[in-house]
């Protein structure tokens, strides 16, 4: 590891590290594994290896006395969309003071990697996080539960195909469901209430309820939750059905599911507003999914890549504006 000073000398990305660096050491220790080396902007060496060699490289790297990589300081992944996921392990040798990053490419969907939790106990939690955030399965992990997310959520929020805007809907929070709780009672309910006063008041404090009423309330709540889950599942299936092949960009066409106007939720629940709320079908249809240009590889066509990215950003902005307009009911 080179000594860092306060003045920064940015190295060009992807440049091959010089001779005598840790990349050569790794190539010496693992002659049979193909290792691509690159320098990152902090002066660290990043080695790209096949994903099925991760466990071996980390294991030997830990025990080999020339490497002695005893500290796994960071483990994460990067979603490169159509190129798949890039697993990153940042290793450090406390005795020899050398740092290295080990990288490996895995497919976005159905990635399976051997767990290194038996080598570094640190990987126990790190892999759990990586699993829930990117959907990478780690074979041999002792406790593959969700760590930061709720235990029964199986979405992968750090993937690029998971945009920020409709996150709530992806998580099963049904906006329509919540807006339905607050508008004024629907006509048939009103009719029921207008009928003899024997009908119980709609709002009753829980502690005033009898046991039977509590039961009823619980059942009602359970039913609502089940309905919301059902809806969320349907939405998810819809989106998944409309999704392009794995690793592609976010399926824009499916993204804005028929959302109710949020205005209806915020308005005061008076009797007049409810019927006047625009029915869903009246709103303009969702903008058609634009054709996104594919991003060429940086080494082959840098200008084309930049242009394609700029184009994607522009399209994304347009789409977001359209979506906002749609949500406003314009």
């Amino acid at each position: 590891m080179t000594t860092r000073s306060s003045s920064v000398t940015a190295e060009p990305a992807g440049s091959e590290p010089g001779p005598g660096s840790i990349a050569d050491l790794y190539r010496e220790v693992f002659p049979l594994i193909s290792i691509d080396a690159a320098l990152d902007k902090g002066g660290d060496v990043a080695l790209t290896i096949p994903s099925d060699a991760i466990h071996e490289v980390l294991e030997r790297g830990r025990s080999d006395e020339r490497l002695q990589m005893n500290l796994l300081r960071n483990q994460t992944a990067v979603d490169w969309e159509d190129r798949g996921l890039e697993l990153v392990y940042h290793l450090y040798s406390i005795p020899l003071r050398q740092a290295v990053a080990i990288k490996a490419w895995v497919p976005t969907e159905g990635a399976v990697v051997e767990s290194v939790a038996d080598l570094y106990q640190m990987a126990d939690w790190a892999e759990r996080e990586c699993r829930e955030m990117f959907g990478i399965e780690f074979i041999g992990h002792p406790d593959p539960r969700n760590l930061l997310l709720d235990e029964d959520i199986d979405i992968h929020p750090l993937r690029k195909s998971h945009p920020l805007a409709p996150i709530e809907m992806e998580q099963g929070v049904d906006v329509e469901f919540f807006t339905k709780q607050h508008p004024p009672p629907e006509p048939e309910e009103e009719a029921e209430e207008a009928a003899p006063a024997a009908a119980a008041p709609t709002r009753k404090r829980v502690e005033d309820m009898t046991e039977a009423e509590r039961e009823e309330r619980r059942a009602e709540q359970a039913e609502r939750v089940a309905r919301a889950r059902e809806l969320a599942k349907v939405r998810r299936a819809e989106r998944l059905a409309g999704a392009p092949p794995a690793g592609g960009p976010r399926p824009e066409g499916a993204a804005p599911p028929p959302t109710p106007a949020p205005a209806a939720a915020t308005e005061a629940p008076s009797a007049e507003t409810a019927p006047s709320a625009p029915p869903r079908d009246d709103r303009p249809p969702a903008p058609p999914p634009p054709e996104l240009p594919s991003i060429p590889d940086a080494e082959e066509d840098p200008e084309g890549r930049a242009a394609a990215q700029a184009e994607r950003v522009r399209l994304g902005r347009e789409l977001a504006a359209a979506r906002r307009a749609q949500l406003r009911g314009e």
Partner: protein
Amino acid sequence: MVLSEFAGVSMPDWIDALLRVVFIVALMTINAFALIYLERKILARLQARVGPTRTGPIGTLQSIADALKLVTKEDVRPITADRWAFELAPYMAFVPVFLVFVPIPFTETWFIRDLNLGLLYVFGVLGLNIVGVVMAAWGSDNKYALLGGVRAAAQAISYEIPMLLIIVAVVMVAAGRLAVDGDASMAGSINAIVGDQTTTPYILLQPLGFVIFMIGALAELHRPPFDMPIAESEVVGGYFVEYSGMRWGLFFLAEYTALFLMVMLASSIFLGGWNWPFGADVGLGLQIVLTLVKTSVMIVLVIGSRALFPRLRIDQLMAFSWKVLLPFAIVQVIANGIILAYGGADWVVGLVSFALLAALFGLIYQLMRQRKGEGARTVSTTPATPRVITAPDVTPVEAGGD
């Protein structure tokens, strides 16, 4: 005799006793208010704060405000609680503490009743206190409460034994002295013990006894460093975690009354209670002042310990009681027996007790030094050269060894 002495009114004995009981209950309730205020202020000073200032002049009405808040608060009972155990527990904790005041002398003639077996009565009745605590712990149907209650029970059992043994040692000395110029059969009476300390307070004769008694008292009162039954950071308040409103207030009333009681007992038995030091004779009016002054000084010490000590662990507390305090108490009893049997003088008793006390402190110091070991060493930085680290010599430690 209270009124008959001060106002010259004569009345039947039972009315007199009743009046005294009422007087004690009223006094102790006010006393709890005063103690809470005192504790807040003393703690605040020790913690670089100012404490209550807003309610009344320099915050003197803070306790009243607290009490009003407690009275008006909703009395919550968990739905799964054992109803009778939960609701009766505060009274079970509260009544014994007040009962104990029967034989405590405020002045030479100022007590509810002078009991021949006063000391035995005190510890017998005070032990009932723990029943209320365990009832609260069990009745709350809360795991923290249960842990706290079990801790409290274990702690009470462990610390009453050395305390009682020390009382035995004190009674032995008192009996020996009373046999000379009084009635040795009254050696169990607290008033007789206080009366015997006109020239020599018992702290000079039994310093070890005083120290062990105070440590035991802290443990009985759940005061730091022995407050694990109510440890906030572990069991979140312990056995009264589910209590609110006045039931919680009753626990606190009991606690502060018990604090006053224990300290009063210590000042009576070891510091000479209403006696002026070294035999000066003062009137009854000053006797009560003397009693209260001695008590107050000790109260300040007890309250101060709350700011200055962290909390021991339950096994360390047990080990300290059974492995350190109990052997010393037994040795003290045996030594007293031998010395008194051979007619040793008072100064011999005192000297032996002092030696034992020194041994106790030496032992504690030695144990602590062993436990502390070497401090952190510092290494200088060598930024340029890589260095090889050898594995440090860490010996696995058995859990809970003391």
